[in-house]
């Protein structure tokens, strides 16, 4: 339940930005630290009727009703389990309607790493899969490949709203 530092200077310096990495299956993903609100352990969510399969439901985040997206289901895993060590990463994204928060279920959070924008390689053409659409780039960290995701594109609804700006900001 730690709240990572959201020191704005880290993102705006341009030289180095911080990325939170987490794992799903055997792939390591990374997202920009400033959009991370909170990391919390698994709690049961309230199901929403007629929701897409990867939207598990909603939970109470200090009084706000926040939807929870299972990133594992979105990225095509079929055998997912919810145990006390399952983690929900709560992120905040900008959409046309203003700031929105949502939780992402991942297998586990690994690390906070510093990256230089020039080290980010563009992603090869991966076709039209759910994960491919959200990839901002790839980066090599300590011999492991980290897939950088654009959280603004993860909730299907916002796919067009804030995408390009966040790319520029990160670059």
């Amino acid at each position, binding site marked *: 339940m730690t709240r990572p530092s959201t020191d704005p200077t880290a993102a705006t310096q341009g030289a180095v930005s911080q990325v939170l990495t987490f794992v799903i299956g055997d792939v390591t993903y990374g997202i920009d630290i400033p959009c991370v609100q909170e990391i919390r352990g698994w709690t049961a969510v*309230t*199901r*929403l009727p*007629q929701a897409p399969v990867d939207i598990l439901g*909603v939970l109470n985040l200090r*009084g706000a*009703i926040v*939807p929870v997206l299972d990133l594992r289901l979105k990225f095509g895993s079929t055998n997912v389990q919810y145990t006390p060590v399952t983690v929900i990463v709560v992120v905040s994204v900008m959409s046309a309607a203003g700031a929105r928060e949502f939780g992402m279920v991942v297998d586990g959070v690994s690390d906070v790493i510093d990256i230089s924008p020039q080290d980010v390689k563009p992603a090869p053409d991966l076709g039209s899969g759910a994960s491919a659409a959200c990839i901002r780039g790839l980066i090599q960290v300590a011999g492991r490949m980290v897939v950088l995701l654009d959280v603004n594109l993860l909730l299907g609804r916002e796919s067009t709203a804030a995408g390009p700006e966040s790319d520029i900001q990160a670059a």
Partner: protein
Amino acid sequence: MAIDLTQFHDAFFDESFEALDAMESSLLKLDTGSPDAESINTIFRVAHSIKGGAATFGFGEITSFTHSLETLLDELRGKRITISQRICDLLLKSVDVMRAMLGATKGKQPIDAQAVADLQFDIELIIVHRDAGAAAAPSSATAPDDSGAATGAPADHEEPGRLVEWLIELRPGPEFFERGTDPVRIFRELAVLGNLLVTAHLDALPSCQDMHPGRCYLSWSLSLVSDAPEAAIREIFEWVNADCDLTVKASGGALAPRKAAAPVPTVLQPVSAAPPSVIAEAAPPASAAQAANAMDSGSIRVGVEKIDELINTVGELVITHAMLSQISRAVTGPSSEALRTAIQQLERNMRQLQESVMRVRMLPISAVFSRFPRMVRDLGQRLEKQVELKITGETTELDKTVLEKIGDPLVHLVRNCIDHGIEPAAARAAAGKNVVGTIHMNASHRGGSICIEVSDDGGGLDCERILAKARTAGVVGANDNLTREEIQELIFLPGFSTAEITTDVSGRGVGMDVVRRNVSDLGGKIEVHSERGRGSLFLITLPLTLAIVDGLSVAVGDQTYILPMMSTIESLRLGPTQVTTIADGREVFGFRDDYLPIIRLYRFFDVTPRARALHDGLVVVVEGAGRRVGLFVDDLLGQQQVVIKSLETNYGHVAGIAAATILGDGSVALILDVPDLIRGASRREAA
């Protein structure tokens, strides 16, 4: 160095709109036979303060129009013109025009200059006619706006109706601008009085290097052709007197009186001197009057979002309390009893806090009701029906959001009452009724909700025609027998517009179905009771607030859902024999001489229930969208007040769900949108 005045615009518009409402209601109360001096004074003050504000902000059209209006009102106040029905109508029209002008100015839209000019012409015509009639008996006078009583003896030039050219020299001191004086504003005000010619003298202007940006190097010569007295001109310079050298003198040659339809409004001189007492209370400076009012009511203006924030925080508190009290039940040990007592104390304080905060958002319904006297009067005149409006319970308070949204449905209902309800006078006389029809609007609190009744003593609903119409439209089968209540319910069906059922005036574009939808969007319901020949009664029941709902929590599988109490009728356990399965698996059960369909909530929400057989669970009878259905649930958990939390902030709209709430254990429960659920279920059946 002028102050940025735009920051005060909103306050000006707010106050002006309120002032216009006050003016309108005073006008409607005005008895043309024996006008009450206080009402006329109120109306006059409204016009005066709007004029003052508009002049300050440089809204020329508004200033000019209100000036004419003010002149007329002053004549009325001085009893030099007697109030007639025509003048009263004219004044009411002026309220509309001013509202439109203010609205247009606020929205930065162009003003409908033609409408304004027409009305202004009519107003000035009345003033001038009086003048012409009274010209036979001239006498010495002071001007209406004139504070001549204070500034001393009237000058020679102040003969009534005579135009004089005033030569004004304005030589500001160097600190003129630094005191926030804006000469343009002064000139603008002068221009209202008559024909103004301004010449600026640039001779004192230094070179750019020597120029101090805050200093005034200009001076002006002004020529004003006006019939205003010297004091009125000097009054405009009242605030700058200390900073400058000012001379005001008449050029000598008096000019011919202007024509009535001159483009610039005329200040006309009263013929008989007004009694000193009237002058004394005549025109208190607008700002002073407003300040006095604000102090009288002891109120402050607060932004709605600040209040909403407060309500949200209190909502959080309610949830935190629920958590605390749940935890305290599990606590054992020596201090556990003290803990529970403290939490009970907390609960009492919190309820009180919650009620107080809720009350901040509450406004009396008179804010909505007040528009109806005017509407009934106008519509009655247009349709040539004599209608009297009775309003009771206007002090009943309800939430501001509800208040804002209930206006339109009520307007529609009242229109219908006049249009279709109240019969023409002849028909009423023939039926042995009072020729003046009555519409009664009443508001009252009933339990945790508010009831608004709109009733008329008109012809009532014609059940046979409605039924015939429904049969042709195929809504009702040819052989179906409907009770009177069921027939009257039909008017709320979409596409069943009242204009089609009844006769003449139509083209409203909205039917009673829209009224019902508006009401149910607010979480309320509407019923109709009508008796042929006696009249109709529309009864709207609304929740007091949109922030908290009285709910019945029900369990389905591992989920908890909240049913708004207002939609629920009763819950019952059905025996195996009470349910009939009709075509394609639809289940119905008998309930008070009626057959209601069953919606199995677990199917609708796709959860695994504990009870699948109908006799294992419970059926809650709910009402919405004008229909009743039975919702099949596992169990009832209890009744509680829940704080409404939006699902749409972070997610989006979900069919059948109105909002969410947070339960005592911190988990989220969904609040069902019963009308939407019923509509959704019938769509599914149809598909």
